[in-house]
């Protein structure tokens, strides 16, 4: 113990931690509980069977009541530990329960007949049981639906991100590598769109999307968000650091301007492109309001819309909801583990999301 204490309280340059360090760690540990537990709870719950989900108080781990096959009964019977009058305990299988009484048989000796047991004397024999029924039910009942919403979301995310990268880097290339009249105005116009939140222009965007015939089309969701002002800005700032001599050298070799952009500047801007890509993927995958108004037909629903749909019709089906929540969050959670550094530096330097 003393060595563990010394290890935990060891500090750079100082021998011992003072009270402020303990307050800091206490706060951080509390934070870990508050931030992490809710999500862990959802993932754990998604592996619970339907009966287990309805239990209160909820069990920490997915559990099920142990059951046995008893001679003379078709379905497996639930096992209970029953307290006898003398205090000893015996294992019984429950045949049926009526009110506060349960009919039970001895699983080892079913021929002895049924015994009536008061419910408060019996405790169910439980075991940890990871159930995948929520996931299989989700895939079975909504088979076409879930497949198409995964496809729609992936399509929107991938296509929109690719176009965003090309379009925004083209604009950034023009704004960083050419000196021309109107360049400042163009940059300002692009940045000024930051002041126009999508929520404010919801109705006109719906009109324009409808006019283009893109209502209920995935392109109706892809097009409006293609130009991201912060993306253009980030790429432009990065491209300013690429030496112009490289471009001049390419021009000497009679490379076209497009070729210079595509073959010289773009490859050199990969780190900035990576940041823009991550943020585009994140916002597209999680987008809710625009798909909600543009995509009303079930076959074009995205994952987020399908997930949100679990709450309205006939109350909430928690089992499938939990499985779907876990599946929807999974790709980004995995991505985050690998890309944390990029994401946090990206936010810190531009304030984009």
């Amino acid at each position, binding site marked *: 113990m003393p060595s563990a204490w010394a290890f935990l309280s060891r500090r750079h340059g100082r021998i011992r931690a003072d009270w402020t360090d303990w307050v800091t760690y206490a706060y951080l540990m509390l934070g870990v509980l508050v931030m992490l537990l809710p999500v862990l709870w959802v993932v754990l*719950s998604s592996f619970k069977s339907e009966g287990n989900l309805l239990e209160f108080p909820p069990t920490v781990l997915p559990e099920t009541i142990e059951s046995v096959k008893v001679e003379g009964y078709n379905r497996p019977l639930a096992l209970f530990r029953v307290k006898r009058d003398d205090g000893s305990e015996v294992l019984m299988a429950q045949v049926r329960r009526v009110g506060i009484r349960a009919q039970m048989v001895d699983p080892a000796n079913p021929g002895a007949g049924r015994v009536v047991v008061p419910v408060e004397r019996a405790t169910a024999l439980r075991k940890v049981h990871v159930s995948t029924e929520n996931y299989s039910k989700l895939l079975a009942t909504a088979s076409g639906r879930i497949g198409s919403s995964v496809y729609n979301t992936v399509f929107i995310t991938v296509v929109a991100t690719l176009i965003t990268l090309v379009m925004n880097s083209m604009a950034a290339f023009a704004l960083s590598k050419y000196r021309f009249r109107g360049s400042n105005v163009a940059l300002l116009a692009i940045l000024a769109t930051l002041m126009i939140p999508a929520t404010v222009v*919801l109705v*006109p965007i719906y009109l*324009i999307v409808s006019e283009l015939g893109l209502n209920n089309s995935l392109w109706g969701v892809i097009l409006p968000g293609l130009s991201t002002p912060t993306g253009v800005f980030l790429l432009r700032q990065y491209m300013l650091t690429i030496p112009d001599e490289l471009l001049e050298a390419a021009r000497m070799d009679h490379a076209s301007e497009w070729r210079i952009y595509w073959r010289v500047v773009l490859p050199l801007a990969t780190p900035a492109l990576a940041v823009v890509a991550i943020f585009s993927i994140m916002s597209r995958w999680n987008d*809710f309001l625009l798909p909600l*108004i543009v995509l009303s037909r079930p076959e074009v629903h995205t994952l987020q819309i399908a997930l949100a749909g679990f709450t309205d019709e006939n109350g909430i089906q928690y089992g499938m909801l939990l499985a779907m929540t876990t599946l929807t969050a999974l790709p980004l959670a995995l991505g985050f583990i690998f890309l*944390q550094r990029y994401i946090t530096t990206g936010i810190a330097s531009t*304030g984009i999301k």
Partner: protein
Amino acid sequence: MSGGTQRVPRWIPWAFLAPNLAIIALFSLAPVAINVLYSVTGSDNLYPSERPFVGLDNYRTLLDCESYLDPSSCSRDLFWRALGNALVFVPTQVLAMIGVALLTAVALNRDIRARGFFRGVFFFPVMLSPVVVAMTWVWLLQRDGAVNGILGSLGFLKVSWLADPTRAFRWSVFVTVWAHMGFYMVILLAGLQSIPADLYEAAKMDRASPWRVFTRITLPLLKPVLLVVFILATIRSVQTFDEIYILTGGGPGSATKMMVHYIYETGFAVQPRNYGLAAAASLLLGAVLLLFTALQMRLARGGRDA
């Protein structure tokens, strides 16, 4: 830039800019103009050319109230309730958000172990979609949920957390802070890390108390970053929609209805769709957002002069 660029035809940069500018014109600039058009025309027709001109009727309808202190006396009481909710929600949420984000950033800026892990833990909800966040808390807060389970084991009775107006409102604040705090924390942490370490060394030599160091060194030097964070948080707080829409559906009653929720309902969810009223409401929302930004800029400048 060297003389070589002179050989490049003038239209080249514009060709590179064209796709971007086209999208911006179509989906950012035109919508602002069309929004104004919608707000001064009536009927449930989507096409502006087929909508009768009604002047400022939509604004009049929105602002028509017998008493501005009593939303139920207004012809569009939900708009006023949403506005009233925002007046409480925005300051509460922004202060809580920045308070917790700053506290966490300061804690993470100390010489601690496993900083990357802790930072990741506080940040990761930012990556989750609003729907996932809301569903997580719907599951935790339901009557037979984990929150009641924990309270039950401590001897408390079950509570319907989202069926009571006050509780639903507080949970709305909590859940949105839980989900977005990490975003502001990361910005503040970067700001903290840019404060020169020798200032803290000097303070330590002078045996300044931690509180004094925080108020005399950290806060003043963090002010520009704090301002950015305040503006971002306020603008986003005013536009809060997704999480609360799913968490409470704006209810119970209209206790957690937000401005964007009102716009969505008026323009899209409730038949007949009233585009004019929705556009008028969103222009008012836009005005509020501009006001907030201008006010905060002003406050910041005032603070610097003093």
